[in-house]
């Protein structure tokens, strides 16, 4: 620790801190544009000037100055104020001052700081510099004349996103931030450029000219587009969700958010189910709730309970899943959450969790990816892996289709026979895993389609001492936000995954927003009820459609892949006659004569907690270490040699909301074919 004084206040900061951090520790706010605590230090905006003694008699950039013992820092002396005023004057020389037509207006660092350090008039009479706007794809809009060249975006793209596509070309007066080629950014994290840009140079293209920040109602929620459960803020004006921004949650998403979570929201306005529909004579026609319920009720009476089945979708809240589970239990039917046909057992929690934890995975020193593409399944988690890899000491290998994950991956093979070889000790990478202090395996949906993959991976990890009381290296990378919550509720039937055994397995099939399976496999005489928010694949085959609520329209509980229970709040009302899903199921249960024993959201949540105590532990991180060495059951069949499929070939359109989103459609159109890893 280093002891220094900031404006006379004594502070202790870790050695290697910079003066800016020391000033923050002392509670002094330092204006800055280029400095960002998660990026490397550039020191080029010069706004964070402070006076330092002992030192040269001139203001110093505090972000680029390491602290020293007994340093005296002055953050508000006359020299500092004059220095910052001078910097601000220079920054504003070429800034267009078009705040009234700028989308950053109201949440702009430059606007805010010019209140403190800007002059009330300009002394600059010469022509201002103008910069041609750049095309960075359908998500990020550029107004480059506003750019103050802090290079935060360049550093974000290079360091965090791992897609070095932005740079500063030319020099001096002609210097420009650009990708030079007029091509869309390839990062799945490009929306974060908008957040880190301190001015209005990079703004959201879909949100352009839509609203002013002070007009928006802000609601805290949880993202459902991947299983990470990123903390988000839903910004609403009237009944319209206008944008989604990340909230800071250090253990989950830090301050980043994936592009799909941020930009798929315009899908909430398209293809919505806003009233019940009933299939009559092969065609869906609008119906009332009572009519729809009696159609279901008539069918339920006609089929035996064991011929009733339910599939829950990828974005369901735990409340709805509990209601559907309880309804299925009362009818005697079966229920499954594994639309993708993954072999997952709810028997023990650490058999389906990301046990190392999202933050904890940074501690790993050897990672084996098995059929997992974190860049697509959870881009923010991928940024963590990259961060750990950049920090050094982490070796990453992969089994599956080689892809560019923004860090070096040693691709060992494409099929699970490689995992079997590793398990049998016939592969050299086993030495690396065995030599690692904290080895980890990240197993993804592509591998979990094989019944033996999970058991093999676990046993391999056990053999290299990766499952122990102080470290749990077995990590399941789920693609679906609802999956862990569903497994916590035990939504798995005995036997094979239901989605595989659809044909003739059920006479009545209840789809709770389930669209991600082969609906053609449903036999034509099965009566299908679809409850969801979008007219997607599931609704297309349904006999009765019940309009549910999307994630922004209901208060819901979600469990992320590391088992963290989080709660999102409703930001808007569901459209038309649509209702929160648990309430629909509650009403339906009455119509079926199997009334569910809860009548309010609080009561459902109490029932959730009764069903599994983990639902009572809000925002609790993963447990450290393993409960025991017993792994998932090993089936008799040997593993397949076929190459593992690439599950998320199209990152942008993976669920009903993003498929309905024009923005995501445009992203998928301009996206270059997914880059193959270099040899």
């Amino acid at each position, binding site marked *: 620790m280093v002891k220094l004084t900031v404006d006379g206040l004594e502070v202790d900061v870790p050695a290697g801190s910079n003066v800016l951090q020391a000033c923050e520790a002392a509670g002094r706010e330092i204006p800055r544009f280029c400095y960002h605590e998660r990026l490397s230090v550039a020191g080029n905006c010069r706004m964070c000037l402070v006076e330092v003694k002992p030192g040269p008699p001139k203001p110093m950039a505090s972000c680029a100055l390491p602290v020293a013992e007994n340093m005296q820092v002055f953050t508000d002396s006359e020299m500092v104020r004059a220095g910052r005023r001078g910097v601000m004057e220079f920054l504003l020389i070429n800034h267009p001052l078009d705040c009234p037509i700028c989308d950053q207006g109201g949440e702009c660092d430059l606007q805010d700081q010019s209140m403190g350090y800007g002059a009330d008039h300009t002394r600059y009479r010469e022509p201002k510099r103008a*910069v*041609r706007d*750049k095309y960075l794809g359908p998500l990020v809009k550029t107004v480059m004349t506003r750019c103050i060249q802090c290079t935060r975006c360049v550093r974000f793209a*290079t360091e965090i996103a791992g897609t*070095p*596509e*932005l*740079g*500063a*070309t*030319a*020099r001096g007066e*002609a210097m*420009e931030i*650009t*990708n*030079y*080629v*007029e*091509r869309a950014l390839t990062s799945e994290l490009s929306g974060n450029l908008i957040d880190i840009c301190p001015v209005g140079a990079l703004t959201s293209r879909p949100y352009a000219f839509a609203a002013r920040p002070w007009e928006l109602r802000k609601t805290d929620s949880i993202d459902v587009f991947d299983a990470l459960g990123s903390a988000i803020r839903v910004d609403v004006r009237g009944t319209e969700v206008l944008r989604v921004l990340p909230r800071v949650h250090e253990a989950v998403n830090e301050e980043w958010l994936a592009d799909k979570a941020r930009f798929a929201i315009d899908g909430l306005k398209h293809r919505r189910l806003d009233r019940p529909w009933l299939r009559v004579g092969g065609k869906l026609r609008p119906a009332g709730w009572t009519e729809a319920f009696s159609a279901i009720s008539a069918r339920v009476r006609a089929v035996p309970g064991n011929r009733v089945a339910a599939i829950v979708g990828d974005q369901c809240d735990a409340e709805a899943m509990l209601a559907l589970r309880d309804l299925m239990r009362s009818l005697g039917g079966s229920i499954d959450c594994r639309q993708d046909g993954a072999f997952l057992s709810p028997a023990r929690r650490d058999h389906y969790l990301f046990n190392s934890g999202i933050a904890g995975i940074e501690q790993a020193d050897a990672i084996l990816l098995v059929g997992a593409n974190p860049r697509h399944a959870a881009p923010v988690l991928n940024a963590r892996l990259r961060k750990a890899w950049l920090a050094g000491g982490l070796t990453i290998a992969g089994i599956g289709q080689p892809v560019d994950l923004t860090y070096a991956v040693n691709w060992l093979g494409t099929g699970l026979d490689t995992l079997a070889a590793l398990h049998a000790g016939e592969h050299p990478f086993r030495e690396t895993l065995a030599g690692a202090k904290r080895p980890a395996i990240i197993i993804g949906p592509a591998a979990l389609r094989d019944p033996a993959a999970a058991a093999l991976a676990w046993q391999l990890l056990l053999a290299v001492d990766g499952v122990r009381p102080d470290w749990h290296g077995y990590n399941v990378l789920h693609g679906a936000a609802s999956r862990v919550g569903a497994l916590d509720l035990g939504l798995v039937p005995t036997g094979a995954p239901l989605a595989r055994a659809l044909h003739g397995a059920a006479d009545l099939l209840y789809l709770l927003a389930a669209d991600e399976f082969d609906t053609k496999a449903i036999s034509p005489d099965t009566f299908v009820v679809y409850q969801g928010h979008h007219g997607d694949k599931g609704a297309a085959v349904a006999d009765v459609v019940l309009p549910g609520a999307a994630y922004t329209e209901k208060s819901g509980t979600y469990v992320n892949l590391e088992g963290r229970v989080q709660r999102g709040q409703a930001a808007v009302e569901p459209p038309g006659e649509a209702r929160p899903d648990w309430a629909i199921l509650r009403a339906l249960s009455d119509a079926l004569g199997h009334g569910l024993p809860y009548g309010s959201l609080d009561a459902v949540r109490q029932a959730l907690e009764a069903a599994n105590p983990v639902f009572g532990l809000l925002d609790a991180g993963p447990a450290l270490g393993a409960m025991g060495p017993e792994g998932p059951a090993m089936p008799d069949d040997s593993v397949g040699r076929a190459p593992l499929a690439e599950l998320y070939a199209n990152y942008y359109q993976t669920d009903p909301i993003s498929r309905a989103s024009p923005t995501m459609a445009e992203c998928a159109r301009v996206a270059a074919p997914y880059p193959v890893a270099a040899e």
Partner: protein
Amino acid sequence: MTDQTPLNGQAVPVPQPAHFAFDEESRAEIDRTLAKYPPGKQASAVLPVLYIAQRQMGRVTGSPWLPLVAMDAVADVLSMPKIRVYEVATFYTMFNLRPIGRYHLQICTTTPCWLRGSDAVVAACRRATGIKGWHETSADGLFTMSEVECLGACVNAPIVQVNDDFYEDLDHDSTLALIEALRRGEAPPPGSRAGRQNSAPTGGPATLTTLENLGPDVPADHPPAFGTARYPNPATLDVK
């Protein structure tokens, strides 16, 4: 023409060739260059390799410039992100990002050259090539005129750098003659047009005139010993 048009503030997109590959000669030169850098630090060779690419363009097409595909090829050779190569190539004015003529007339107009008559040189270049503005190429595609800052040969001002060679002590007429010679495909010897050796005084040496011959019969006291009459010790000089 590819669909990639680098903007970089250029109002008019530059037609880009679709393909670039290093030829045998360039590859050999790249190998020699990369050998100078430690393994894993080959990105440090970006400047020389960019220059190799530009020279190959000059050799093959007669126009030494760097199209986008050539910069991409440099990025591939050095295993570095393409944007990092674009940044370097756009930073240095010696890299030409649009096609230029076979002879790049880089005319120094900084103060010493200007005092010594660079205006006449510029006028002669314009007259001989028909080029009106800066960074333009003559109709026959042979010449491009650029205004450059000090080339570091002020003693021999005014100067025009043609591709890699300096032509010095120019005036209106000698510039015209130089350009006509280039147009005829000749390779005029670089250096002073005033007939002096390197940067030696015009009209012959004004000092050291007695040392006419430094051959086998050098004076016995050459080099003069410190403290002798020909090379007195300044400390002992009686300076009044």
